[in-house]
């Protein structure tokens, strides 16, 4: 997805003179052509995430469109107050694009993990959260959304689904509709969900916009058993469903990253397996849900 991020944003720097890129000293080589051709709107701003968000807010106040890019924990958790006050409270347009997701940098340890990014930002009023599952989806969602006047968080991952879908901002896609269990799969979890659901009668809904959540897409399924599968600390989708519906009764379960520090290394696949986000573990959960 990072390669696509470079392509998508490079095109926009060329076509939209309002776009200003601020890199936190990562991805610099990828944007070398933009640094050469558009130095006035392409910055390797440095490793100072809090001031970078404040600076981005200043650009936005001056009617430019900032795109801030660095690793998830540094942009979200370190600069959280700036995101809340400078962008959220002031209702400014900005694009925050992270890499690393929950534990793409598995071997680097917990400092570089960020399973709290989505639940944390979910609590900031007005901020939009986009979790693409494929590079093409990032391209579509970013182009649809980058200049909509709101702050949008785009969560990129090193992982990707095999197939991309014709995604739209704030629209879920019903991939298949059968049986009494409805699975809502977020972003890159779709690959494991599709594997796990082979030959099972389940409805699968694919979600790439966590906030605002497309409540209409699930309203007709609310009497069924709903299993939500998220690639971060679980609960954001359920929170948004409950907030948007006015606290309905329903049969909901959530699977996501457990609320623990992951003190193991290896690869993302190793950790997926360890915490139950691989397709075999997900299949067991689906069958349990069917048999409930």
């Amino acid at each position: 997805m990072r390669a696509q991020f470079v392509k998508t944003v490079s095109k926009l720097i060329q076509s939209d003179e309002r776009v200003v890129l601020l890199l936190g000293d990562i991805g610099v080589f990828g944007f070398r052509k933009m640094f050469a051709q558009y130095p006035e709107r392409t910055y390797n701003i440095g490793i100072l995430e809090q001031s970078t968000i404040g600076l981005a807010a200043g650009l936005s106040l001056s009617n430019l469109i900032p795109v801030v890019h660095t690793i998830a924990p540094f942009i979200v958790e370190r600069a959280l107050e700036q995101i809340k006050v400078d962008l959220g409270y002031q209702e400014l347009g900005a694009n925050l694009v992270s890499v690393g997701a929950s534990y793409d940098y598995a071997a680097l340890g917990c400092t570089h993990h960020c399973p709290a990014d989505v639940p944390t930002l979910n609590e900031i009023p007005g901020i939009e959260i986009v979790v693409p599952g494929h590079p093409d989806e990032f391209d579509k969602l970013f182009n649809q959304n980058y200049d909509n006047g709101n702050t949008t968080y785009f969560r990129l991952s090193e992982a990707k689904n095999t197939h991309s879908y014709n995604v739209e901002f704030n629209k879920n896609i019903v991939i298949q509709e059968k049986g009494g269990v409805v699975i809502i799969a977020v972003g890159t979890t779709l690959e494991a969900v599709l594997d796990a659901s082979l030959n099972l009668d389940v409805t699968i809904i694919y979600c790439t916009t966590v906030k605002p959540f497309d409540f209409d897409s699930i309203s007709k399924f609310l009497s069924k058993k709903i299993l939500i599968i998220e690639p971060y600390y679980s609960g954001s989708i359920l929170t948004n469903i409950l907030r948007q519906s006015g606290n309905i009764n329903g049969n909901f379960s959530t699977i996501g990253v457990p609320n623990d520090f992951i003190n193991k290394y290896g690869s993302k696949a190793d950790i997926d397996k360890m915490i139950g986000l691989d397709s075999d573990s997900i299949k067991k959960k689906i069958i349990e849900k069917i048999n409930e």
Partner: protein
Amino acid sequence: MSQLKNIKKNIIQASHFGQEGHVASALSILDILFVLYDKVLNLSLNNLDSDDRNILILSKGHASLAHAAVLEANKFITRSELMDYCSHESILGGHLNKKKVPGVEASTGSLGHGIAISIGMALASKIKKIKNSVFVIVGDGECNEGTFWESMLLASNHNLDNLCCIIDYNRSNDRALKLDSLHEKVKAFGWHVEEIDGHSHKEIISSINSKVVDKPKAIIANTIKGYGIREMENNPAWHHRSPSKEELEQMIKELS
């Protein structure tokens, strides 16, 4: 000067009516704000949407009473709006909200935020080739924040000679974390630094008007917290306190 005295009276009256506000901090920066609006910014309700307007950001947002009172004196808001300070329906809170108050460029309050925002706005002017000036007022306590020093690095790295940071150096923060050699420190971060009496209008205007090329300018304004009201001057008890009826009467008398 009678206008300035009236603004001071308005500040303490608004604080008395609302029983809220950081009056001493407001009086610390009032001369600076007064001169900026009177002689430098050239701002009015008519040019607030102009791309090339000058920008002022009050990074030490808790000094909002001074900003609100100067905005009232310059007809951005009404006297009744000022005297409604911090009521439930007021447009004016303890920290001003840009969505509610005409003339406020950024909603500040958390320290160390406005300086980075001002850098973004100064950089935006460079990108858009707009010849305006961006002013930001920070407090000395705010200079404890890491983002202040991050911002010092950023502004000089990007040669923002359209940016002027005025540091309200009333030394109220010395009891916590001293900023010894502030002049040298800021200079070492690549800024042009001037040091003035922050209550001398002549020194304020002359330091703002001095020409600097390729560097941001910092003006260290030596000020007195609570300036102009004896009871309040450098008295920490008045950091976040509003005058009672009797205190208000005494202060109004002193200002008259």
